[in-house]
Structure formats: structure tokens, C-alpha cells
């Protein structure tokens, strides 16, 4: 089949930039990476991109297709080519481009290293000098985070990092959760203190692009949420983000409604609130602020309180309370009896499949 691509070529030394179109003849099974290989081999040896395993595990070939981060080796081209669409391939975002599709990963690794990404078991030693004893269930807490292949797709798409390049970002924070959630690690408090810094977890805008674009189902946003929940649980709540979240819980528990009038003082403090007074008065004049007294209490507030207590008694007020993204464990709703499919793969071969004799 014929496959066409437009590729943003770039040379950081000369600053030259150009969108070039390529068309190659390729087998139907090719991935984006295979197409780039054909172009480099046969049409233009100067095209620069990274690659290695071509099986979605080394994390080398992160790039953008039509503006969204993908692993080139995971992206099958058949349907795109058949549709006649010519995708635009460019380097990942939020990282300096070196040449063509190759970005400088140094800022990425600097943040990774800032997480102190190694196990700190403290003085805890395995009971018999062998392995630490932990159940599969305990270890599952960090299953998704340990799937990360450091490809940078999440960082590429991170909106918070686009506005503040210093933000630690989804990959580094997911790595952080990999240790905070590890039952063997004893440095949880120190870690959370560090991750609660100015450029830490509360800077995330919760746009969920990282979850959306991660090719391995790590769900970095969920990891950040877990770090937030653990921080609040342990009383590391000096950040506005933490206070903000806490007030949501408090108002839900006490009245069943979000008490917005008190949200600003509770989050930003009294001084900041006074500064916002003029704005608040103008809101009040337009009827946008309900009077704080007497507090408006929801009729079914008992339900909300029961829910609060349930979360507490089940110990789900930390990371465990964060609803897990689905695709990492592949635990998508599954019902074999009714013949429901987990996911329909793109291509299904039309051939009879023999069964085992025994």
C-alpha cells in the first residue's frame, strides 16, 4: 500500500525548519516506525529519530502524530493510509528539539532524578535475610506506575508543564508514586514533603492528557491524585491545592453542599480573602454568592456523612480511594458468559481457529 507522511524537519543548530512530505510503498502491517525506516533507508538518510525495541517497551520512539504524542512502533498505519489522510509527524512537545523528531531528554531525566527514584527501605530488613514479605495485593498498589517506560509521551502533552516548565510533571510524579506506594519504602513523608513543593503535585491542572496519551496505561494523573490523597491523609496540606481539596471534603461532610463562600478563606487564608473582598462584593451584588449564614444543608446530608465515614473506616482516605484508570491492568469490564468482547482489536483475521484436543 502507499503511505504518505508529512514530517516537520528541524535543525537546532541552523534553526532551519520545514514540513516535508514523503510517500512510500509499504506492506499493510507497517507501523509508523516502519514507515520512517523505509523513508530513512530509501529516500532520505538524514531523517533523524530514535528507535530500538520496536515492541513498545524501550520507550525510544515517542513523537507526535497530528499533534498528539504516540509511540511510533505502536501506531499501525493501515487504516490511516486507507482513509487517505496524510498525518503530520513532529517531535514531542515540552522538550527542546535537537533535530527532526529527536528531542533533548535531559530536562526529562533531571526531573526523574529529582524524585530520588530509588527504594529507601530505612532500617527495615527482610525477616530472614531474603526478600521482603509482601502480598501481591500490597504490591498491586504500584503495578501501573511500574509499567512506565520513560518515553515522555505524557510530558509532551502536559498542559501544566507548558505554562510552567519547572513543573515536575506526570512522568516524574508517577515515578514518585511508584515509591510512595511501595510497602517496602520508608521515606513516604520525606518524599511527599518534597513532591508538595512549589513545582509539585498541586500544579497539575487535571486535564488528563497524560492518562489519555500514555501508551502503557500508567495513568500518571491517577498517580498524582494518589500522591495528593496520601499527602492530605498524612497532614501534609500546606499547599493551597491541598487546602482546597480538604475544604471540598469538609463541606461535603458537614452540609452536603460545597460552601463556596468559605472556600477562598479556607484555601488562601484570611489576608488573601480580604484582598479579594472587592471582587467578592461585586459577585454578591449580582447574586452570585449565597449568604453563608445560616448554612444551607442538603436534605440527604446523612448519606454524604455515611459515605465519609465509610471511606474512613475502609482506610480509603489515601491513595486507595483514588479510582483506578482501567486500561493498565487490562481490567476492563469483562463478561465471557455473555460473549462480550474486552476490546475489539483493529484487525481480526477471518480464519477458522482449531481447538486443542485435550
Amino acid at each position, binding site marked *: 500500500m502507499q503511505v504518505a507522511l508529512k514530517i516537520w524537519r528541524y*535543525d*537546532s*543548530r541552523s534553526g532551519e525548519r520545514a514540513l516535508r512530505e514523503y510517500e512510500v510503498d509499504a506492506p499493510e*502491517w507497517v507501523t509508523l516506525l516502519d514507515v520512517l525506516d523505509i523513508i530513512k*533507508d*530509501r529516500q*532520505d*538518510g*538524514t531523517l*533523524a529519530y530514535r528507535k*530500538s*525495541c*520496536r*515492541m*513498545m*517497551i*524501550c*520507550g*525510544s520512539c515517542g513523537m507526535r502524530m497530528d499533534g498528539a504524542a504516540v509511540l511510533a512502533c*505502536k501506531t499501525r498505519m493501515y487504516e490511516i493510509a486507507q482513509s487517505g489522510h496524510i498525518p503530520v509527524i513532529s517531535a514531542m512537545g515540552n522538550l527542546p528539539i*535537537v*533535530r527532526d523528531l*529527536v528531542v533533548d*531528554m535531559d530536562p526529562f*531525566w533531571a526531573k*526523574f532524578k529529582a524524585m530520588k*527514584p*530509588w*527504594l529507601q*527501605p530505612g532500617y527495615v530488613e*527482610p525477616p530472614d*535475610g*531474603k*526478600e*521482603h*514479605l*509482601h502480598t*501481591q495485593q500490597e*504490591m498491586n498498589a*504500584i*503495578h501501573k506506575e*511500574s509499567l512506565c*517506560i*520513560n518515553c515522555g509521551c505524557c510530558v509532551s502533552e502536559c498542559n501544566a508543564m507548558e505554562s510552567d516548565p519547572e513543573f515536575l510533571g506526570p512522568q516524574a510524579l508517577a515515578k514518585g508514586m511508584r*515509591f510512595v506506594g*511501595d510497602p517496602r519504602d520508608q521515606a513516604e513523608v520525606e518524599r511527599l514533603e518534597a513532591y508538595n513543593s512549589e513545582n509539585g503535585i498541586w500544579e497539575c491542572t487535571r486535564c488528563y492528557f497524560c492518562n489519555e496519551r500514555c501508551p502503557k496505561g500508567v495513568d500518571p494523573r491517577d498517580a498524582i491524585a494518589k500522591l495528593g490523597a496520601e499527602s492530605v491523609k498524612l497532614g501534609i496540606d500546606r499547599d493551597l491545592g491541598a487546602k482546597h481539596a480538604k475544604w471540598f471534603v469538609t463541606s461535603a461532610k458537614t452540609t452536603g453542599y460545597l460552601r463556596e463562600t468559605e472556600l477562598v478563606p479556607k484555601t488562601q487564608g484570611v489576608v488573601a480573602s480580604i484582598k479579594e473582598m472587592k471582587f467578592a462584593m461585586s459577585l454578591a451584588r449580582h447574586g452570585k454568592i449565597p449568604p453563608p449564614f445560616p448554612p444551607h444543608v442538603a436534605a440527604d446530608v446523612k448519606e454524604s456523612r455515611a459515605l465519609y465515614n465509610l471511606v474512613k473506616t475502609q482506610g480509603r482516605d489515601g491513595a486507595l480511594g483514588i479510582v483506578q484508570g482501567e486500561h493498565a*491492568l*487490562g*481490567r476492563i469490564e469483562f463478561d465471557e458468559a455473555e460473549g462480550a468482547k*474486552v*476490546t475489539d*482489536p*483493529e*484487525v*481480526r*483475521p477471518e480464519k477458522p*481457529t*482449531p481447538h*486443542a*484436543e485435550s
Partner: protein
Amino acid sequence: MRAAIAAHDAGVDVAIVSKLHPTRSHSGAAEGGINAALGNASEDDPETHAYDTVKGSDYLGDQDAIEILCNEAPADVYQLENWGAVFSRTEDGRIAQRPFGAAGAPRTAYAADITGHVLLQVLYEQLIKRDLPVYEEFFAWRLVVKDDRCQGVICWDLMNGGLKTIGAKTVILATGGAGRLYVGTTNAYACTGDGMSMALRAGVALEDMEMMQFHPTTLAPTGVLITEGCRGEGAYLLNSEGERFLKRYAPNAMELASRDVISRAEQTEIDEGRGVEGNVLLDLRHLGAEKILERLHGTRELSMVFAGVDPIYEPIPVRPGAHYHMGGVDTDVWGGTSLEGLYAAGEVACVSVHGANRLGGNALMETITFGKRAGNHAADWALAHTTVEVPESATRDAERDLQALLDRTEGERPWKIRDELAQTMHENFGVFRREELMERQGEIVAELRERYRRVLVEDKGTLFNNDLTQALELEFMLELADCMVVSGLARKESRGAHARPHDYPDRDDENYMRHTIVTWVDGGPKLGWKPVTMTKWQPQERTY
């Protein structure tokens, strides 16, 4: 990385040179697990592990090295766990172990089907903890040899361009295998045998180069690996008639026979017309969705992306594919080579613990145990020697040769030579071997080497020029292909991965229970032999 950590902890200055970022290494693609006789799933001991490995090697493995591996393996695996490796767990919270091919007990410790990935991450974490410098995206091209000592490496700096010479008292090669010599390989694009070729050029011998393992379950068309863990969990292999054909080849072990046996069985089925479009079928359906999703999640993802098959509902089409080089740089049990100051560990090396056929799960273990040993020994050596001398001529020669390659403006692009090499190695030096085809392959390789002399690098720049490094990798591979063919022709028997059913169908212990050795003399391979070290186990007939 394991070697660097050991050397650092022994008190020397260490740096890592890698053409990829360390976590991009192909060790990360190892899926199934790492073998150590922990005895967590059933009773087991290092001696049984050693026996299985000796038998699996078709008695070509050096038994002293195998005993070292199996004895040190448990402590080395505990060490990885203590560092933070995220292993799967048994019900009582210990490291989980699953059955693997040709193993007498469920011995393969695993982390779902991403064991290599998890171990690579934990080693990198320990590297960062120790703040060890890494020369990332430095393409190692030549070794510096002075006064019969290896004293450094000459590298191409991908990010900035230019040759950079790094002087060192000792150099440890950990560059992995050369699967890219074949089409349909499980190996990454990076697995081009760089270290083997560099050592060969520096005068060091390569051992057992004919021993290329074919993994029984790789995905068409490009050879993506489907883990042995599938069969460890109970998957069946079926032919087009729906028959579990292994009952005719390995009636006892069935799908858990050793890899060479299964690859030959599959190839025979396919050759005799009982394949399905050049494949056999790996059937996981009876394992049930839950087990597949929990323990073989990555495998399912690979099958769905690359073959369009969901193993919960359909069997996966698989076939044998080039996977692992049992042969490599001839080393002693400390990773040392015949060149003072040069060490090798992992797939690049041939200690030899795998002999003529490696058992699944032993490769990761070898990288850890022998990486550690090489690191320790190299550190001791470095502490006892004070000088490093890199002669200017070494760098100058390298620069001149490289410039000549870059100055060439007309010639043949590397891809045609590369593809022809891989295709013909697959056809003429594959699962089954014939005298005349191997001879033909020797001629083809000679012709390709001749064509390589006019190879054209299109990219003349200095900014991430991997057009250049890919051409240099091709030169490495052509030399290794030559060595493999020479070794293969010399071994007139069938042993492990080297199967010659048409002319020498049997193992010949009297003449060939010895290692082939190849050195590089006058621009070509020269054959020699080396005895096998035996300790406890006498050769026996090998059945599964």
C-alpha cells in the same frame, strides 16, 4: 549496569558508555523471568538448576561456570528485590516463581510479563542513587589497545558529533547480542553485536558463534517476542489440525521442552504443511481471561497491536525467530578475556553457561551474576594498576577511517546489504542447517562484505547522525556473520541450536564436545577449538 554498580561499590571510578539511554537497553524486553533456585513454588536447589542447565546446553556448557551461576543466583535475586524490584508474589508474600522450559522445578522468578523491564528500572535507580556518570548516546566503535592492554574506548558522540576517546584501566563490554543478523528476530534494532566485533578486532577470540538460539514463539512478520511465560502458565502449541504436535517430539515435557527442541518441532510442522500461513498456533484460551490479564497482560497487548489477535478469544500465530546468541566473547568465570583489562558480561560474552542451547530465564540471571563478577574483578584489577595510556595514533586512525567513510559521495546505501544479510542468514543459517547452504552463505557474506566497502552514508552532519552509526553497525554484523558461518561449517554434528538433520543428525561427543573459537586474522575468521570444562555431569542422551 550491574557491573558498574559492583565496580563502584568496590571503590573505583566508573562511567557507563551507551549508544542508548540505559533504560532503553533490550534487556527490558525480556518478559518471562529470571531463574534462581529460591524454592518458593516447590522444592528446588542450585544443583538441580545446574543439572537442568548442563542438560539444556546439550553438554556444551562449561560446568564450573554453570555451578557458579546457579549457586550465586538466589542471593543475587534477593539483592534485586531488596533494591526494589517489583516481583510478582506468592500467597505467603515471597517472590513468585513459574515453570519454564526444561526446568526441573518452577524456578523462574517473574514480574508479570515485564521482568526485564522491572529489573532494568531497578538497576537504573541504583545507578542514580550512586550518581554514576553515563555517557548517553555515545556509540562505542573501537577499543584502544596499547601494550597488550585494553585502555579505553573510541566513541561517536551522537548528540554533538565527533569521535570521543575515553581512557580507562579496564573496559567491560555489556553490549548484548546480534539478533539483527536475521530477519524475524526478537531483538531490538540496537542488537548488532557491537561488543563482539570490537573484541574480535582487538584480537580476542569469539566462542561458539554458530549457536544462535531460535525462540519458538515470535510473532510474524517482524519477530516480536511472545514470552515463554505463556507456556509456563500452561498454553498449548497447535498445528493446523488442532493437534498438540509436541507429543510427537517431546512427549513428557510437551510445551515445556527446551527451546531448540520446540523450534525444530515447529519448523518441521510448518515445512511438512501443517502450519497456518507459515506459523503454528499458541493457544492461551483455556487459561481464562483473568490469568491472561493478570500475568500476561503485555503479551495480550503485543498480540493485539502486532497480530490483531486477542489471545483471550483466539490462538496467537507464532513461529521460530532468532533470539539469543549463546556464543560471544570468550571469557573466564570472572568475565575476563585474553586481553588484559578487557571484560565482557551478558549476551555479548560466552562464559559459557548456555553451551549449545540456553534455558529460558537463564539470560537475565547471567547478566546479573556475571555482570556483578566482572564488575568486582575489573575493579580489583583497576585498583592494582595505575596507568592509562591512550596513544594519539589510535584516535587519529579512527578519525581518518571515519572521515574516509563520510567523504564518500557515491556508493550503495546500507539497507540493501543489511536486508540481504538478514534474509540469507535466515534462509541458509537458520533452525536447520545444510553443508551446501552454509557454504553458499559464506560466499554471500564475502560478497556483501565486498559491497560494504562502497557503502554510502548520506548524512554528513554532526547532529544526531545515526545514519553513520547504523552503517558502522552493519560492518560489525558482516564480520560476525563470517565468524558464524566458519564455526557452523566446522561443527559436523547436531547439538543444541546447531541442527544438521540431513548430514550429521546426531551429537558426536567424541569429536565435537568442545567449543569452536574464532579469531580475526588478516581480515577474516580463523577457526580453533577449546575443551569443555566438566565437573559432575557426564553427557547423556537428551530427551524431554
